[in-house]
């Protein structure tokens, strides 16, 4: 029904457009030029912000990555020293590997949790009001401070924290566990805590657009709940999963603050490397690391983008 309505209004729009062009004697080319002028007028503020605060900074970083540095200043030059130092150092490769490790583990957990939560909201909650209410309940923490959400793990995970004292009083362990706070465990825990929302939202959005009659059809054809999930829902949810993946991978790979805070400065990823150099005023070296990180992230995201048409899925 809706499709009929849409195609009718499409036809009407085309007819109107045709009448317009006929009466005004415009050619198709002039119409496109007109679109372009209006489009750029409307998009001008957006373009301005992106050029000044995104494109130019990237250009600047690339330029500075070839500069030289003394202990207290940087000077223009065209040196490959920064890259040479980076690419011949063991540390770089370990940190590079660490960055991927965090991204992969976090991705797996956020996907599992996010998918389950979205599935529950989309298919097991029956009234739209409740769906919206529970969805908002999941979204609200995203709008509060990340740093405070990290801090709030301290009383849980500390040496004398809730987790340790509970486990000791239950007799599971005798000594407090040392690896709960300031370890890879706490880093990944914080990532999952902060970023699962980025999986829930796009997956839920895609699931809500699945035509419910497809699921009825599967059930009528004798599919079990598991088969429906495996052969109908998961394939149809893939675009949402892709968008969630893009968010989580980009956020984890670009992070430095979570790793620094939750590992107690004991682990590093690329972001930490950059931040360290910045703290030492070694901007050219920081820029070189930044260029490598940016190229890595863009290649990864570019690959993921080929698998999903974001604009269509919103």
């Amino acid at each position, binding site marked *: 029904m809706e499709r009929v309505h849409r195609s009718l209004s499409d036809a009407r729009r085309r007819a109107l457009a045709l009448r317009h062009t006929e009466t005004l004697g415009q050619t198709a080319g002039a119409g496109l030029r007109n679109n372009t002028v209006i489009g750029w007028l409307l*998009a001008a503020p957006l373009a301005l912000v992106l050029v000044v*605060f995104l494109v130019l900074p990237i250009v600047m970083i690339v330029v500075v990555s070839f500069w030289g540095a003394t202990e207290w200043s940087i000077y223009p030059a065209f040196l490959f020293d920064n890259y040479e130092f980076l690419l011949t150092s063991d540390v770089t490769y370990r940190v590079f590997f660490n960055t991927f490790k965090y991204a992969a583990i976090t991705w797996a957990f956020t996907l599992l949790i996010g998918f389950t939560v979205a599935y529950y909201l989309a298919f097991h909650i029956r009234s739209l009001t409740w769906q919206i209410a529970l969805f908002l309940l999941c979204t609200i923490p995203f709008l509060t401070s990340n740093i405070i959400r990290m801090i709030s793990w301290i009383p849980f995970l500390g040496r004398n924290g809730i987790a340790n004292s509970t486990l000791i009083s239950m007799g599971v362990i005798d000594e407090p566990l040392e690896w709960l706070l300031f370890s890879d465990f706490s880093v990944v825990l914080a990532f999952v805590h902060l970023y699962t929302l980025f999986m829930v939202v796009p997956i839920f959005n895609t699931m809500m657009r699945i035509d419910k009659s497809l699921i009825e059809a599967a059930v009528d054809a004798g599919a079990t709940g598991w088969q429906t999930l495996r052969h109908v829902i998961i394939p149809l949810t893939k675009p949402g999963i892709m968008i969630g993946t893009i968010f989580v991978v*980009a956020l984890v790979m670009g992070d430095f603050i979570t790793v620094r805070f939750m590992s107690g400065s004991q682990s590093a990823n690329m972001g930490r490397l950059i931040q360290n150099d910045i703290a030492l005023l070694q901007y050219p070296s920081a820029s070189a690391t930044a260029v490598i990180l940016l190229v890595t992230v863009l290649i990864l995201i570019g690959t993921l983008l080929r698998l999903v048409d974001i*604009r269509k899925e919103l």
Partner: protein
Amino acid sequence: MEPRPKSFYALTAFFVLFLIFLYGPTVTIGILSFQGPGGGLTFPMRGVSLHWFRDLFEQQAVGDIWGSFSRSLVLGLMVMVTTVVVSVMGGLAFRKRFAGSTVLFYLIITSLVIPSILISLGVGLIWSQSGLPVHWSSSGFGAQLTWTLPFGLLIMFAVFNRFDRSYEEAARDLGASPWQVIRHVVLPIIAPSLIGVALFGFTLSYDEFARTLLTSGSYNTLPLEIFGMTTNVTTPVLFALGTLTTVFSLLVIGVFLLVVWLLNHRRARQGSDAGKGMI
């Protein structure tokens, strides 16, 4: 209604655990911020008091919290207004394909996925090399926009994907000018979503850390101030501050939700003129 399958109860349990995971830590520091004066960063509670909240209001005890709060507030409002205006204009622009729109679209995606510290570093370098004073209201403001605008635009794309154009056609058929169509038809219809864009613009700016790190200059915003505290404050005053900011964020979210609810309510009441016509 058909009976609930067994999986419903398992999934409900999972969802409840997820909510505890999501909110548990925040609630915990909420409780711990009422520690007695002798209490530490974890349980047990040594008495209940407002001691740590009182500490926050004594300027010299911990940094410049109220100064940074007011800067974050002003910056958040600036970013919010700019995000709404620029996102709506951008959203309208992208309704028609225009030469260069694909490039612009990929720039928006880049702005979303680029590691925040790169924006901080790049903007900081540009400002310092060209001798401009780094300030939260100039370089910091622009750096935050690269984070809030993509969210605003993604929301606008989602809104316009679902927008029924026959309303506009009806207005045009009745002789409305393009501006009148936007002003009296499009904007009122998308108004609730604009509240959403505004909420994102404000809260993302208010909580932003990485993109303001090197772009805010000598005056800290609140998240920077809080992060500074984590390295040298080891008393529950940190929790008290965390609780206050979280409560403030929740109030802001509440106000925005209320406005959306009121808008929808009013629309439901006044939107239809069924039964009011001439009989």
